[in-house]
C-alpha cells in the first residue's frame, strides 16, 4: 500500500516537473525543475531496488552535472521570450518528431506488453546487494566495453580541453612553487639606521 503511494507520488512528481521544465519561462526555473525530475526518477529506481543506480543518478546528474548547468544558466542573463521566438516556425517539424516518438512509446508500453504482470519488480531479501552484483558483471562480462567507455570519456575530456585552451598568450602566470618556497629573508631585510644628530 505504502509502496504504491510512494510510487504514484514520485511518478506524478516526475511527470509534473518534466512538464514544468518545458513550460516554465525562466531558464533557471526550468533547470531546477529538471533537478526535481531527476530526484523523482531516482526515487522510482530505488523503489525498484536498484539503489545504486538511483543514488548515482542523483550524485552524478543532480550533484555535478546540473550544478554546473545552473552555473552557466545563472551567469547568462537569458530572456525567456527570446528563447521561444521560433516556436511557430519549428512547430511542424516538432510535431513530426513528436508523433514518431509517441508511436514508439505506444508500441513499447501498450497494454499487451506493459503492466504489473510484465514489470513486477522482484522481491529481494535484505542481503541482496545491488552494488556487488553490478560490479561483478561490469568487471567480468563487460570488462572490455567498460574500459572502452572509460577511454572514450578520457578522449572527450582531452578534446574539450584542447578545443577551449588557447595557450598562455600574455598570461601572467603565478609560479606556485616559487610562492611557496619564498622565505622572509628573500623579501625583508633589516637596516640599522644611525641616530640623527641633535642640531
Amino acid at each position, binding site marked *: *500500500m*505504502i509502496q504504491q503511494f510512494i510510487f504514484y507520488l514520485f511518478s506524478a512528481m516526475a511527470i509534473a516537473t518534466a512538464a514544468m521544465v518545458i513550460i516554465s519561462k525562466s531558464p*533557471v526555473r526550468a533547470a*531546477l525543475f529538471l*533537478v526535481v525530475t531527476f530526484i523523482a526518477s531516482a526515487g522510482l529506481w530505488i523503489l525498484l531496488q536498484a*539503489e*545504486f543506480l538511483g*543514488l*548515482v543518478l*542523483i*550524485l552524478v546528474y*543532480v*550533484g*555535478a552535472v546540473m*550544478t*554546473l548547468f*545552473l*552555473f552557466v544558466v*545563472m*551567469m547568462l542573463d537569458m530572456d525567456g521570450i527570446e528563447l521561444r521566438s521560433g516556436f511557430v516556425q519549428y512547430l511542424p517539424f516538432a510535431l513530426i518528431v513528436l508523433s514518431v516518438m509517441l508511436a514508439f512509446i505506444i508500441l513499447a508500453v501498450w497494454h499487451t506488453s506493459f503492466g504489473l504482470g510484465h514489470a513486477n519488480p522482484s522481491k529481494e531479501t535484505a542481503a541482496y*546487494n*545491488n*552494488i556487488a552484483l553490478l560490479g561483478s558483471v561490469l568487471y567480468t562480462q563487460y570488462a572490455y566495453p567498460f574500459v572502452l567507455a572509460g577511454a572514450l570519456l578520457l578522449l572527450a575530456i582531452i578534446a574539450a580541453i584542447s578545443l577551449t585552451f588557447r595557450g598562455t598568450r600574455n598570461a601572467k602566470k*603565478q609560479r*606556485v612553487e616559487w610562492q611557496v618556497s619564498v622565505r622572509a629573508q628573500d623579501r625583508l631585510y633589516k637596516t640599522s639606521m644611525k641616530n640623527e644628530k641633535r642640531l
Partner: protein
Amino acid sequence: MDTIMNLLWIALKILAIVLPLTISVAYLTLAERKVIAYMHSRIGPNRVGFLGLLQPFADVLKLLLKEMVIPSQSNRYLFLAAPVLVLAPALAAWAVIPFSKGLVLANINAGLLYIFMMSSLSVYGVLIAGWASNSKYAMLGALRAAAQTVSYEIAMGFAFVGVLLAAGSMNLQTIVLAQSGNILHWYFLPLLPLFFVYWISGVAETNRHPFDMVEGESEIVAGFHVEYAGAGFALFFLAEYANMILISAVASLLFLGGWLSPFEGIPLLENVFAFVPGLVWFVLKMGFFLFLYIWLRATFPRYRYDQVMRLGWKVLIPITLIWIVVVSFAVKFNIGPWFNQAGV
C-alpha cells in the same frame, strides 16, 4: 494500521536523532565562541545563564524574533526555499549514521554513497540562495561556494573509494566492524593520506575556515546569505553546523572506528572500560573532530581563492589517486594487520 504504527515509530526515531542534533548545534556555537575566546585569551560569552550556558537560546530567540527581509526584485519563492534546501540534506544524511552497533535509522547497503549524495545536494540551496536574492555579492559567494564544493567533492569521493576498498562494503556498520581488533586496526593508519584528504575536503565542503571563501567578509561582505535576516539566516547557520557535525561523524566512522572502544584488544584496560557504551566513544570522537574545526578556525588565515582550487585539484586528488592504488594492492595481497582477516 500496521503501516501507520510503523510510520509513527520511524517518525519517533527521526525525532530522537534530530532533537539532540539541534541541541548539539546550539551548544557547538557556544563551544566555538568559548574555545576561540580562550585561544585568544578572552572569556567569551558569560552573561546569559550560568557561565553563559543559555547564550545559544538567547541567540536563537533573537534571530527568530527578527524581521524576515525579502529583497525587492528577488525571486520570492526560491529565496524562501533556499534555507530549507540547505538544511534538508544536512538532516537527511543522518538517517544512515550508525550511532552504535544496530543503533541506526536505516541500515542500507549503500550508506556511504547515500551520505556522499546528500552532501552533494546541499550545494543547491547555496546556489539558489545566491541567485534568488538578486545581489552581486550573494551571487559571487554562491558561485564560489558551488565551485569549491564541486571540486572538493571529488577528492572526498576518492577518499571514500579508498575506505570502501579497504572494508569491502558501502554499509557503514560493516565498515566500522571491519576496523575492530584494536586501535591499530582503525583505518586512520593504513589510509592516513586519505584520512587527511577527507578531513581537509570535509572542512572545505562545509565552507569553514580556512576555506570560508563563501563568506569572505573582507571580500564579498558575507557571501551567499548576505540578504538573509532572522529565521532564514538561522536556518543557514543551523545547516552549516549540522553539516560540521555530520562530517565529524563520518570521519570518526570511516577512520576512527566509529563506536569501537580505543581500549579494545588491550588486555587489562579493555575490561576496565567495557562498561562504557559505544555511543560514548562515538560522541567523544566526534567531539575531537569538532574541536579540530574550531582549532583550525582560530589558527589559520583564509586561503586565497585560486590556491583553494589548486589545493583541491592539483594536490588532494593526485594523493587520493595514488593511495587508492596502494590500498588496492594492500587488499589484494592481504597485507596485515589490516587486510589479512578472513572475510575481508
